[in-house]
């Protein structure tokens, strides 16, 4: 069960990750990857995004409306505990 951290703002990254994702993998949007929340919400179930980064981009309300789960830095650290393979895109 891998954790896929998407930091890139390139939409092509979402497609790349979509092809490689397995049942049980988790996708987390952070930094400029937050801008891809609309496309990512269509592609991934149980999508998470870094709350502080969504907030500073003014996207928290919009993302929450698409059921993107906003998580704290502490929860991020817990995610890195739970997933052995951590891939950053």
């Amino acid at each position, binding site marked *: 069960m891998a954790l896929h*951290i998407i*930091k890139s703002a390139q939409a092509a990254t979402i497609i790349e990750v979509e092809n490689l994702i397995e049942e049980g993998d988790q996708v987390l949007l*952070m*930094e*400029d990857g937050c801008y891809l929340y609309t496309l990512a919400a269509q592609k991934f179930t149980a999508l998470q995004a*870094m709350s502080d*980064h969504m907030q500073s981009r003014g996207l928290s309300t919009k993302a929450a409306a698409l059921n993107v789960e906003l998580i704290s*830095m*502490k929860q*991020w*650290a*817990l995610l*890195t*505990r739970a997933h*052995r393979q*951590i891939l*950053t895109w």
Partner: protein
Amino acid sequence: MAEQKLRYTLILTHSPSQLESNLSAQQLAVEILSAGDAIDRVFFYQDACFIGLNSQVPGQGLQASYQGWVDLQSEYEVPLQVCIANSLRRGVLDKAEAARYQMVDNIHPSFQLVGLGEIAEACQSSDRIITL
């Protein structure tokens, strides 16, 4: 925490002023250490070598890009390792390398220049490697 203590290596690859990677990594490191886990090393690669430049003059009220790391090191003794080959190429020198090339060192003394063997060690001994 009843769980087993995990050991982390963080690898940074981006310069500090344009993207947020350096800040994200500092915040993650704080959470990892507060949770009782360990950070074997923070490894600065490619343009992340510039994070340690000692001569930064941040704007009023702002912090130099190395400050969060220096604070974490003084509290938790986290090794701050900078790839020596990448640093020399870019002009980021510690005292030893500066002496070797008859230049002046310009990296914050909390950072040390090391070889890529440290990443091999990370692959072997760390439970998690996170690239940011």
